[in-house]
């Protein structure tokens, strides 16, 4: 008892202080380290029996609030998602040029219509004709450039998904290995390993919306909020991505792997069969979710808008309407000669059956069109779409039409008959024919109509775009392929002279061209998204402006969302930082305290030694 005990206590004090010093020095040294949480060590008294015999080092613990950490991870995923969206939307917005600038899409459209204005006034002037064709060329190449850029962004997103998936795999592997080490020594609760594991999880949460569940044994399991299990505590999931090197407008995601032409993320465990993560919507936030949304929705829609614009430009100038001629009957009806119908051209029939108005759209095809064509893609979203093959035997065609009509609306509908190249609908047993009209595409610049195929689809042998569905919708990627009709470039007077005997100064055709773009309203597919899920009706030039506006607004919206998300993230970050970060002042204060304690303990030892000396000299 006595002095030796005091000496022991002082020594234990020195040891403890040194240990605390060690913690403080680590804290100070790691003040800026990623994933480092402040450590604290509480000294606890050493008991010998029921007597305090000194002090010993307590458990080194991390100052961590699990709730804040969880929230931080969610906000981090959210901020990465919105950040990515804002970044891509911003790039998309930039593609459309500076307001009023020479490269802006609307300026180019305006320049084109303006060149037509001049042509209306000076139909005979070769410079006015050249200007129209030049501006049309500029417009076509601008659409192609925009389209290329949109596909460039998609390709970039595809590449980034691949990188992100690789990174996620690395992180999951690291997490698994750290987790293994933690489990190996269940009794040693090493804050360093825990920090390391958390750091990786944090990094993973930037990629996807990961949720961590900490187990009693110190292990952790990871899953996305939508239920994709990433790490079960033993083995991480293996994510793989079969990315494509270049994306084109036709590259589309599909849950059917046979038709899918872009990469998808597959999650597999061990040697098991993989699950399509994108098909099941298993990643809902984080960078990866943002990239997927961009690649498969936002950018696809932007491409569709450009395609619709290209199609509108082309067809507004080349399409003409044919109204059915009356058949006196009885039974009365209407008929149309379909000799000039091009694949993709449509005939619309409206009739009343049992007091209900029904509409059908016949889409001309040469047999290569898909069986199902969305009604919104061929004009009238409320109509029943029936493929119509003009070159098939008459009986086959009429049977197919009757069957489709009676299947959809019941028997008794109008009766179709074909004689020669004329399709006739006459009143059926419980129906009367209302209107019957067709939209056909003029393919000859000198065809005698004011309509003109000014633009052609360079991907289909420079044929005018007719809305064809042969071998898939020709609309997809049209913006990339739109070109000025080479036949017109060779015969520029055809901009004015639409028939024999038409004089060089005749403004009829130029006026039609100008009015078709600036005055005549067309309907644009709901897929372009300019009117929610409805058809958007506008002039072609109006559509161009609304597209630019749509992308501008989308960019602004994304930016605002991102700003909001960042505010939320900053708030949670600062809270987390306050809770877990190293505060140098605090550490310095601790240092002073430790220095004092060390001095005091040393002083006690000196006193004990003096007292022992005194005792020895006696």
């Amino acid at each position: 008892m006595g002095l030796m005990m005091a000496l022991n206590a002082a020594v234990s004090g020195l040891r403890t202080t040194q240990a605390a010093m060690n913690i403080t020095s680590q804290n100070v040294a790691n003040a800026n380290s990623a994933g480092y949480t402040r450590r604290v060590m509480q000294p606890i008294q050493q008991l010998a029996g029921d007597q305090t015999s000194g002090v010993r080092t307590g458990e080194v613990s991390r100052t961590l609030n699990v709730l804040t950490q969880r929230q931080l991870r969610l906000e981090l995923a959210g901020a990465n998602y919105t950040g990515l969206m804002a970044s891509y939307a911003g790039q998309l917005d930039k593609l459309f040029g500076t307001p009023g600038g020479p490269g802006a899409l609307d300026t180019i459209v305006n320049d084109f219509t303006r060149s037509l204005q001049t042509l209306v006034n000076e139909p005979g002037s070769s410079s006015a004709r050249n200007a129209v064709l030049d501006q049309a060329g500029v417009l076509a190449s601008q659409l192609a450039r925009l389209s290329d850029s949109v596909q460039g962004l998609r390709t970039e997103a595809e590449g980034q998904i691949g990188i992100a998936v690789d990174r996620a795999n690395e992180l999951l592997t690291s997490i698994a290995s750290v987790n293994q080490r933690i489990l190996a020594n269940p009794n040693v609760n090493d804050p360093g390993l825990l920090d390391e594991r958390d750091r990786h999880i944090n990094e993973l949460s930037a990629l996807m919306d990961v949720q961590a569940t900490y187990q009693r044994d110190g292990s952790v399991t990871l899953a996305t909020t939508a239920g994709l299990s990433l790490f079960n505590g033993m083995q991480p999931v293996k994510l793989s991505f079969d990315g494509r090197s270049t994306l084109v407008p036709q590259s589309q995601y599909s849950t059917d792997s046979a038709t899918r032409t872009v990469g998808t993320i597959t999650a597999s465990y061990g040697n098991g069969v993989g699950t399509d993560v994108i098909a099941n919507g298993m990643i809902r936030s984080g960078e990866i979710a943002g990239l997927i949304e961009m690649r498969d929705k936002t950018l696809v829609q932007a491409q569709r808008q450009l395609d619709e614009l290209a199609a509108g430009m082309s067809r507004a100038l080349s399409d003409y309407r044919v109204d059915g001629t009356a058949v006196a009957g009885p039974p009365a009806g209407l008929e149309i000669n379909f000799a000039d119908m091009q694949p993709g051209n449509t005939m619309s029939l409206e009739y009343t059956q049992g007091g209900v108005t029904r509409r059908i759209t016949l889409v001309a095809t040469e047999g290569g069109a898909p069986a199902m064509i969305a009604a919104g893609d061929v004009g009238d979203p409320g109509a029943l779409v029936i493929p119509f093959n003009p070159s098939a035997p008459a009986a086959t065609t009429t049977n197919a039409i009757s069957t489709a009509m009676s299947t959809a609306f019941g028997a008794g509908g109008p009766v179709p008959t074909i004689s020669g190249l004329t399709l006739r609908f006459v009143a059926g047993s419980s129906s009367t024919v209302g209107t019957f009209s067709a939209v056909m595409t003029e393919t000859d610049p000198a065809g005698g109509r004011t309509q003109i195929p000014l633009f052609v689809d360079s991907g289909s042998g420079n044929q005018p775009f007719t809305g064809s569905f042969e071998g898939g919708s020709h609309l997809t990627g049209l913006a990339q392929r739109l070109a000025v009709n080479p036949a017109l470039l060779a015969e520029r007077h055809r901009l004015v002279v639409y028939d024999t005997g038409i004089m060089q100064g005749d403004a009829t055709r130029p006026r039609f061209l100008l009015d078709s773009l600036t005055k005549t309203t067309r309907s644009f597919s709901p897929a372009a998204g300019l009117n929610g899920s409805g058809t958007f009706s506008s002039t072609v030039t109006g559509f161009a402006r609304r597209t630019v506006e749509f992308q501008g607004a989308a960019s602004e919206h994304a930016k605002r969302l991102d700003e909001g998300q960042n505010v939320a993230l900053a708030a949670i970050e600062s809270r987390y930082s306050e809770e877990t970060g190293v505060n140098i002042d605090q550490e310095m204060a601790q240092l002073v305290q430790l220095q004092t304690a060390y001095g005091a303990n040393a002083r006690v030892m000196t006193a004990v030694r003096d007292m022992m000396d005194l005792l020895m000299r006696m």
Partner: protein
Amino acid sequence: MAISPFKPGSLTRTSGTNFVSMRNDLADLQRQLTTGQRADTYGGLGFERRTSLDMRARLSAIDGYKDTIDQTTLRIKMMTQNLERLSKLGQDTKSDIMLAKFNLLSDGTTFAQKNAEQRFKEVVDLLNADLAGRSLFAGRAVDRLPMESFELIMNGDGTRDGLKQMISERTQAELGGAPGTGMGRLSSALAGSAVTLSTESPLPPFGFRIAGAAATGSTILATPPGGGIPQTASFDVTGQPAVGDTITIRLTDASNNPFTVTLTASASPPQSGALATTFQIGASTTDTAANLHAALTQAVREKAVTELQPRAAMQTAEAFFAATPSNLANLRVLPPYASSAGMTAATATDTVIWYTGDTDPTITARNTAPVRVDQGQVLATGARANEPAIQNVLAQLGVLAASTFADTKVDAERYRVTTEQVFGKLSDKPGNPKVSDIASELATAAATMKATKDRHAASESMIFDALDGVEGVSKEEAAMAIMALQNQLQASYQTTSMLSRMSLVNYL
């Protein structure tokens, strides 16, 4: 922007982000100040981007309208100038006719005719005018010169006949007979004491018709035509007439213009070289009848030359200039000309078609160049060289230029009739189409365009204001914002630096 994983313990992350964002704001403000533009993308314009887009489209359209107006104004200016000159040429021709006498030059034309020829040539140039390759008076056929050359119009080219040949054919048809003997398709006969004048049977659409015959005194019995064909009038000299007795024969042409031939009985023979107005009373009634026959034949011949020939020239010229490729009917005389039975259609291969421009009758001349000067405002600014007013001037100058005269009393009279007709046709009379009307219609369009342009200028400045409000930034505002941001940034730097220095480390 991907966000790096959070590093707890990195104290400066939040403030660092703040600095970066403030720096970005500052850079953006600087851009605003230099460019005067609020944003460099449509996204940055905010909610009002729609205004910007729509205004820019409107502005482009207005620019287009203004260009159109500028171009058209120039074109109309040139057209009206040419039309005014054309009108002036007609007036000058009138003055020539009024002032100059029948004074022949060596080639059988007068000064007035020489002038007319030069003027015709000038008219061809005026009407063939173009502006930057666009023919002004060809309607929609802007790539073609609307008029053939003076030479071709007048003389043809060997296969196609010109105006002179057509006038000559028509003249032969009107006068009938061998050159110098034509009586306007009439014939006279003497049988004993009776002088008979008759038309051909059937009546040709040329030459004279006989409307009546009368005589004063009691010795000559006049028998007017009875209504049958051939029309026949006769004068039977039953006794010697007294000096001063007259016979009168009333004639009309195919267009029912009346002419009268009056011969007075005279004791002396008719004056040589003068127009026939008398017949000599002979030794016997038979002699007197022979004298009357000779005088009447002479007088009718002279009447045909002085009245029918100028009218034939005028009608031919008017028909020639009214002809269009799609309407060539009744333009040529059926051969043989001197005994022609009527008119026939010309073809493009046998007759010069003087006008080669736009002839579509379904569209008015003005409407061949509709100019859109605003959304729904279309002005008609076209003109065609074959408009009736211009045709008229051409026909009159053509008649003068195509006719030649001999230095005789008869031709002096023919010249008088010719110029009188030309003068009348060039005068401002209710029925005459006027070149100045075309010019004034164009001038009205020009005035409307000017008013429209002013309106465009007003809307343009309004749009600029609106655009400025949407796209632009006020320099003052941007400068103020920069100042405020600068203060803020400086204060933040200061505070951060102070805070970073305020560490316990420094005091240990």
